[in-house]
């Protein structure tokens, strides 16, 4: 793998060029609430010591809310109008979505979600953004009690999902690893900002990062879920859970959505695709009132099973990156890693 050196000043220049060329540069905001489109280089936050923001940058690929079409009444009929998209403005194809400073627990999210959005039917709303995306990863020096990336097959130095990968060497410089072909093509115009890399120095920095001990064994948990579906552990968590859905919205890979008509009047309106969450009681309710997941325990079980079993079985990926956002943000202090750890302990006793 090719490796270069880029100074912080030059990284700023690179970002300035991107902003000037009207690319969408997405960076974490200063208060670590979420991610935003940067309009100026002063807004750059590339901090390998920082806590993961409350929200991931998922919304730049899978929008919180977006129109899927507009409709207009036309006598007995309707006109359906596509939202402005790549098809309508070919230049948009050239507009990259550059994710700047994605931690190893964020970077794989696009790849993980792309499975569900592309098996059989293809979701163009996700794809047209995913295909324009460039992920600039960042090695992670942060760790707290909610982190568990090492338990889901990632670690603070993993490059999975990154096209380019930054490693902070000192106060002034980053090593920049060119991970994918997409990344290689992307850096070509900016190569003058970079100098020869020093892989040895980079390895030294990376080797110093302490890996967290694994909190649970995924394979064990995956096996245990189906035969122990009615286990009381899920109801126990369900009694605490408020069903607010914060965990799903904060999650970099949760992808459930709703389809609703909004802003309608007698002649026109639009159909929207909005974020939804399996923790909401109304999520699965039938017209008859019958609800297959009628308790919070069952809904929490769905969350665990979908992340650590079903998605694995179906697409071969864990639907979790171990970022710990759901646990940090939970209003009643449910820590998903601890719940899964508990399941692991129960599984070990069998």
């Amino acid at each position, binding site marked *: 793998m090719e490796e270069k050196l880029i100074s912080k000043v030059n990284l700023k220049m690179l970002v300035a060029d991107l902003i000037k060329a009207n690319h969408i540069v997405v960076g974490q905001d200063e208060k670590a609430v979420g991610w935003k489109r940067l309009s100026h280089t002063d807004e750059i936050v590339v901090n390998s010591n920082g806590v993961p923001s409350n929200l991931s940058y998922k919304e730049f690929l899978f929008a919180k809310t977006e129109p*899927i*079409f507009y*409709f207009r*009444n036309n006598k*007995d*009929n*309707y006109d*359906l109008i*596509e939202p402005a*998209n*790549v*098809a309508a403005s070919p230049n948009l194809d050239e507009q990259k979505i550059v994710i700047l400073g994605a931690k190893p627990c964020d970077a794989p999210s696009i790849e993980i979600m792309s499975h*569900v*959005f592309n*098996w*059989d*039917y*293809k*979701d*163009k709303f996700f*794809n*047209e953004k995913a*295909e324009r995306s460039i992920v600039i990863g960042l090695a992670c020096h942060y760790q707290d009690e909610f982190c568990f990336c090492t338990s889901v097959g990632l670690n603070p130095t993993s490059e999975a999902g990154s096209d380019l990968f930054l490693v902070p060497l000192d106060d002034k410089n980053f090593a920049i690893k060119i991970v994918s072909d997409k990344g290689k093509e992307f850096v070509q115009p900016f190569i003058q900002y970079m100098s020869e890399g020093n892989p040895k120095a980079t390895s030294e920095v990376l080797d110093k990062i302490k890996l967290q001990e694994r909190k649970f064994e995924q394979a064990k948990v995956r096996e245990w879920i*189906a035969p122990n*579906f009615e286990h009381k552990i899920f109801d126990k968590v369900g009694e605490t859970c408020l069903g607010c859905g914060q965990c799903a919205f904060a999650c970099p890979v949760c*992808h*459930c*959505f*709703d*389809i*609703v*008509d909004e802003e*309608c*009047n007698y002649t026109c*309106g639009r*159909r929207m*695709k909005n974020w*939804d969450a*399996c923790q909401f009681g109304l*999520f*699965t*309710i*039938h*017209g*008859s009132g*019958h609800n*297959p*997941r009628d308790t919070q325990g*069952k809904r929490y079980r*769905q969350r665990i*099973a*979908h992340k650590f*079993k*079903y998605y694995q*079985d*179906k697409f071969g990926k864990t639907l979790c990156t171990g970022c710990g956002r759901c646990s940090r943000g939970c209003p009643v202090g449910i820590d998903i890693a601890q719940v899964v750890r508990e399941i692991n302990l129960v599984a070990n006793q069998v």
Partner: protein
Amino acid sequence: MCRNNIYKPELMEVTDIIDETFDTKTFRLKFRDENVAKNFSFKAGQFGEYSVFGEGESTFCIASSPTREDYIECSFKKIGKVTTALNRISVGDTIGFRGPYGNYFPVEVMKGKNVLFIAGGIGLAPVRCVIWNTLDLRDKFKDITIVYGARSFNDLVYKRELKEWKERADVKTVVTVDPGGEIADWDGEIGFVPAIVEKIAPQSENTIAIVCGPPIMIKFTIPVLLKLGFAEENIITTLENRMKCGLGKCGRCNVGNVYVCKDGPVFTYAQMKELPQEY
């Protein structure tokens, strides 16, 4: 890259409306666009997303048979926001339709065999589709038996067709209503569907049973069928989980490793047993 908008419906004109019960209607629908109509085909058991613009989308099966190619039909009960809006629609109005989605009844496998249809309430809609499919190709199948029940006489749907099936010599049709649901000159059975199935005891050998209806009916009918000697693979039902996209994306109908909208809605009892009880 595929630029096709999978969430955008086709437009369909409502060409006929039949009042089935006080709250259930059947729509006959025709595509507004002739090219779409020409390229459209489906199989018995598949479903679609029907929409009233401004109100939203709702999921129902296609209730007409694929052997009737000029139109599709859907039946729905006025029960929520979209179905209430659909209930207000008049002949000549336009609604949206996406589909067909999901898998289908194994009509090919059923050929040369006896077929037993068991339905309850509005659950007759998906069964009606495959009933007409088999009746339109009548000589391909052996004995056909239909057992249909509803809470009361007033809740029976497709009354005209029930009469037609009853009058046919090549179909055995048994219609039942729950005790107390009969009317003065009721000539059908009185009793719950599982009890009636037990009473008429259809033969299980070389027979495929298709069972659709409320979860409680399915729950009590399956043991009866097993007692009659039906193999688990020969009992077929549909799961009716809530859906939004119908495309295996939105996550609502996810049960175990299965998306009901993609891997279903048609499941054999053998397959259903493998799933967690979340339907």
